[in-house]
């Protein structure tokens, strides 16, 4: 059985404009899937539908055997703890320490009161340190997040997602604000998550070449419709053009 199944998904923010139209795909455990497409194609919206940060208009999203659209408030929280999310701008709480930000990933397992008091078990804290160590930023554990570089902050974001012990990680342009060096580090980590921890990754990307290099499979979106879905080797120049429209990207000659 597939981990995630999207069936006939339609989404519009305003009644007169449809952002996603009839999206269908399945993702298996441990897959690394990139979603590419021009700006405004609906990539971010698609990710947000999956953990119901926005409500779906039509169609179904099945996570394991759960129908995401039909969950009670409590079950939805439960679902979200099973799905980690990583953002382009990291979305950390800037004034808190790295370790505090990582531990925020545990809230889904807490009662409101525990969460408010900020009670975390020793085991959770140790796990957090373990993750930071693995991501190579345990040196900065007690620094405030706004004192870190972009690449370091993104790794905190990853740690926060991983400490949720998710089955699926959604990444919305995780490297768009990073320099090439840090980008490589982050992509390598994401890749490692899928291969070592067997967690599924769904990544929105702008960099076609990165997508081809890292992912098993690529989904191409254009104007809210899937125009390509297949293994990354199959993404030919012509298909790239059909995803991004005819104006071919004039990449700088590097």
């Amino acid at each position: 059985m597939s981990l995630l199944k999207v069936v006939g998904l339609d989404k519009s923010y305003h009644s007169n404009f449809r952002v996603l139209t009839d999206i269908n795909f399945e993702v298996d455990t441990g897959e690394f899937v990139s979603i590419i497409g021009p700006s405004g194609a609906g990539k971010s919206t698609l990710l947000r539908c999956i953990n119901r940060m926005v409500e779906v208009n039509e169609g179904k999203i099945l996570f394991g055997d759960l129908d995401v659209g039909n969950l009670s408030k409590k079950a939805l929280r439960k679902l979200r703890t099973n799905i980690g999310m990583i953002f382009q701008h990291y979305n950390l709480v800037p004034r808190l320490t790295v370790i505090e930000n990582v531990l925020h990933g545990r809230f889904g397992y807490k009662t409101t009161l525990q969460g408010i008091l900020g009670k975390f078990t020793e085991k959770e804290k140790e796990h957090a340190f373990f993750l930071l160590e693995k991501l190579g930023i345990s040196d900065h554990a007690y620094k405030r997040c706004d004192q870190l570089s972009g690449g370091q902050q993104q790794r905190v974001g990853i740690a926060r997602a991983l400490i949720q012990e998710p089955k699926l990680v959604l990444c919305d342009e995780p490297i768009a604000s990073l320099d090439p060096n840090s980008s490589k580090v982050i992509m390598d980590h994401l890749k490692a998550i899928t291969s070592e921890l067997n967690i599924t990754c769904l990544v929105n990307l702008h960099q076609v070449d990165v997508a081809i290099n890292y992912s098993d499979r690529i989904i191409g979106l254009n104007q809210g419709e899937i125009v390509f879905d297949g293994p990354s080797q199959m993404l030919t120049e012509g298909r790239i053009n059909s995803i991004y429209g005819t104006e071919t990207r004039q990449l700088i000659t590097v």
Partner: protein
Amino acid sequence: MEVANIRRKRDGRITIKAGSKAEALMVSTLMILAVLTMIGFLLFDYSGLELKKAISETGNNLKTMFLEPALTHFSWGEAIYQVGITVGLAFLATVLGAVISIFLALFAATNLSNEWVSKVIRIFVAVIRAVPTVLWVLIFAIAAGLGSEAAIIGMLFHSIAYLVKAYSEVFEEVDEGTLEALRATGSNWWHIVMHGVIPSTLTYLMSWTFLRFEINFSVAVAMGAAAGAGGIGFELFMASGFYFDLREVGMITYAILVVAIILEIISTRLKNRYFPSQ
């Protein structure tokens, strides 16, 4: 795997706070304020207070004021005219204050001015702001006689003090890069101010000015009356201090509220129309 860098408390549990100075200061500030508040409540002089009676009476008074408003000592036409005077006083104090403040604020902003000039202006402004408005009004009533001049100049002082502080902080937030770019084209100070600083801060300048206008309106209610410049505040003073007519006070309060809310709406509209932020 035992991980390096973990900090533990004495009982062996892992800390997650940074323990920075800022954090400690924030917590202690809040604690101190809480303690001072409690001391305050203990020290207050409660003589003549019967809380239960006072609260129910306040309720009654509010009811009389707001549910049975009426004008007895003057007419609606008069009321509108008087509100007009109050708005006029506030408007003049704000406009004059804004114009003067812009210039002072340019010299008070550390990124546009010399350190010493900036310091002198700041101290000057802080002192002016600490002197009660009514004293300024008195001084100018003595010098200029009763009338709008005393009220407006009295309010002007505080408007300037407030706006210079606000404006100069806005100016200081102008992107240093923008200033640098203009400097690099060979622009002089005035060019940079007129075409770099002012245009990029206009919305904020407007916001602060409108906020001050609202404040000045409520100050003008009290000060217009004291300075003999009239306005709705005079009627309010008479209604409350001499006729003890709560219904009239209610009506005047409504009039003031309506004007204040209209001003707020107009200022938001104006701001959105002429100085959109996007």
